[in-house]
């Protein structure tokens, strides 16, 4: 079953639309779903032109395709546990929160908190992801615990903050503090980033570019070969007796 949701140009507004109901599973029972704009509840078809092709009994067989100016559409795919969501353009904040299964593909850019606290499944972002991609949430002790997030563009600050499991791969550069408070899982940044691994307790963080503002609380161990890269291996963050592994191609301490 393929559900196509085309955002109506008239439904565009400065106030974001909260669309946690857009999850493949929900469409097994039809398209009569609510979304919210501020404190107003709207029907899905007040915001989107909705069309459905085919039918399905299982979540895995549902694909939802979103088109139009969806950059202010929040929480799409929250708690998603299977099926597929394809966003042809950009997507708003909190896409794939708490996701545990299935696939989300963002063809454009993603706003903040893409895949926050995700537990399983796959998110692919063809463009850039903003801050807190694959991160935990305010005050929480555990961020992402499983699954995969792959960003082909750049990622913002606090990438994979508090990650405890799963894999995050960014093909471009990342911002400040990737892997902060990391306690498990794997983070790979193909480009450059600033201050990776701050206060990490466990897990592995790879930087194939240059780590700027490298933290002085990591102990240098030696060089290793990894996927065709020669990387310098550090252990830390020793500020709090962390047992993480940080691998960087090159690094610069702050002056």
């Amino acid at each position, binding site marked *: 079953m393929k559900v196509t949701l085309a955002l109506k140009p008239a439904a565009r507004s400065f106030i974001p639309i909260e669309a946690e109901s857009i999850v493949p599973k929900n469409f097994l029972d039809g398209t009569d779903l609510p979304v919210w704009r501020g404190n107003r509840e709207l029907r899905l078809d007040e915001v989107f032109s909705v069309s459905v092709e085919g039918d399905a009994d299982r979540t895995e067989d549902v694909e939802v395709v979103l088109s139009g100016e969806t950059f202010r559409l929040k929480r799409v795919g929250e708690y998603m546990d299977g099926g597929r969501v394809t966003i042809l353009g950009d997507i708003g904040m909190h896409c794939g929160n708490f996701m545990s299964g299935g696939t989300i593909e963002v063809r454009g850019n993603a706003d903040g908190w893409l895949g926050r606290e995700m537990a399983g499944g796959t998110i692919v972002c063809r463009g850039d992801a903003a801050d807190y991609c694959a991160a935990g949430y305010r*005050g*929480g002790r555990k961020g992402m615990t499983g699954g995969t997030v792959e960003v082909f563009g750049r990622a913002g600050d606090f990438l994979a903050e508090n990650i405890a499991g799963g894999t995050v791969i960014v093909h471009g550069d990342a911002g400040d503090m990737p892997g902060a408070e990391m306690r498990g899982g794997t983070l790979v940044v193909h480009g450059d980033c600033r201050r990776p691994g701050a206060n990490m307790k466990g897990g592995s963080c790879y930087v194939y570019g240059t780590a700027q503002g490298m933290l002085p609380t990591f102990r240098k161990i030696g060089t290793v070969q990894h996927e065709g890269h020669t990387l310098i291996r550090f252990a830390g963050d020793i500020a*709090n007796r962390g047992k993480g592994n940080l691998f960087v191609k090159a690094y610069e301490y702050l002056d």
Partner: protein
Amino acid sequence: MTELLVKNACVIDPLRGINAETMDIAILDGKIVEEVSDAAEVIDARGMLTLPGGVDSHTHICGTKVNFGRYMSPEDMRAGRTPRQGPLHATSGYSVPTTYGNSYRYSVMGYTTLLEGAMAPLEARHTHEEFVYTPLQDTMANTLFDGNWGIMEAIRDGDTKRVAAIIAWTLRAVKGFGVKLTNPGGTEAWQWGKNVSCIRDPVPYFEVTPAEIIRSIVEANELLGLPHSVHLHCNNLGTPGNYSCTLGSLGLIPDLNEKRQTLYATHVQFHAYGGSDWKDFCSKSEPIARFVDMRPQIVMDMGQVMFGRTTTMTADGPMEFNLYRLHHEKWSNHDVELETGSGIIPVIYRRKNLVNSIMWAIGLELALLTKSPWQCLLTTDNPNGAPFVKYPEIIGLLMSKKYRDAEFATIHPDTEARVPLPAIERELDWYEIAVMTRAGQAKALGIQDLGKGHLGPGADADVAIYPIRMDEVDPSAEYQKVIDAFSRTEYTIKRGRVVARRGECLVDGSNATFWVSPKVSEAYDMGKDPDFIEKFDRYYTVRMRNYPVQEEYLNRNRCIETEARI
């Protein structure tokens, strides 16, 4: 003129010696009266358990410390979310909810009066501002004097009357209700990077000991004729073997007041530990309970720990630092100038953890081993031992051996060898629970004459009607029914108005704050004392004239004037 008549109520009213009598309760303009006219609105209680409104004599719900707990734990706000609804505000939070969250949840459980356990005088405005937004309970604040420089100097000089004078001036200035000592001397020592290990260690610079602070302030409290006694959080909280320090502190207290206790020892569970370290940690509830049994001058509260997530917060800064070193989680530490300090860390008490399991047992033991329920009141030191929403479960545990055994089977297996709990057969009855949750609390706070904690004519019409009939339920076996009943009243009546019904709050409410203004002679008016004024201007960051909390900060203002003997 508003009249209300509660008919067929099965009343337990311990302060008037009433035990399960079916009667009517007449209410006129917010007060209990002998009778009302036929025009009165009628509520038929149909034989349900009816008690005076609940009183919590030690809880942390308002003020800078609580609020810091809120903003250092945004994750706590993910729980307990309810939307705005009619006159009700939105709420969120579990262990440190919004003020409305606290107020609504307490109201649904039948609580109508709350004492904030620790208000730093300098930060009193914040507490009073939050009191205004805790609309369904009358409020009052214990005021911290554990590290007050002026008081420690007066104690060093042996001048108890000056101690009393400083307390009088401060209570009036900050609209405080009672005198709280948290780890007396220890928080001041903490400003020097130290702590006091027990009551005989001198505080750096001031060279007074906790024992001298406790004794002198207890005397000063009685000189001022305050409604409540000194409210003590003993030194050495949370350390193995601290029970001997607790006994030493309680042993300092003479019997100075015939109407109430002379010392209120709070959250004694945290102070009843045996052993020499965490490896041989064990319960010492028995010696504490026996000691209290023999001393009518002492009242304590449980400080029960319940399993789950919560936030610890106290003026005991050094203790929180020790906790931080155990858990390595987030921690806040705060200094309050010439007065006190505080610390906060979130914790999770786990059944599978031996120390936590023993703590859980100790609180229950204190309540079950202390003979008189008037001397051991039901609290969790909310939220330190657990959020107050756990009170109904604690009532269930105290009333049912079967429930205790069922819970005991789920905790750390080594607990049995370290605690007396499994051998305790006692099951508290409805009357004892009524004492421990309202009557005893009102008496200990000295507010029964102000119309709290009982249903006698003239009392504030604060009533809790629980959806349970004593003659139909055996609490020993049907503890779940007891828990359900105490979790949500059929009706909570506050100042003569139904404020909650079957788990739903109905009105926005408007509360009163009780505070104390002791009348002292001209010679002991610290507002005119040159030395006090000079020190104030020299050391505080605020001007003395800006320090007092204006009465505009209070909602309904109930000032208690006392005749001081100085």
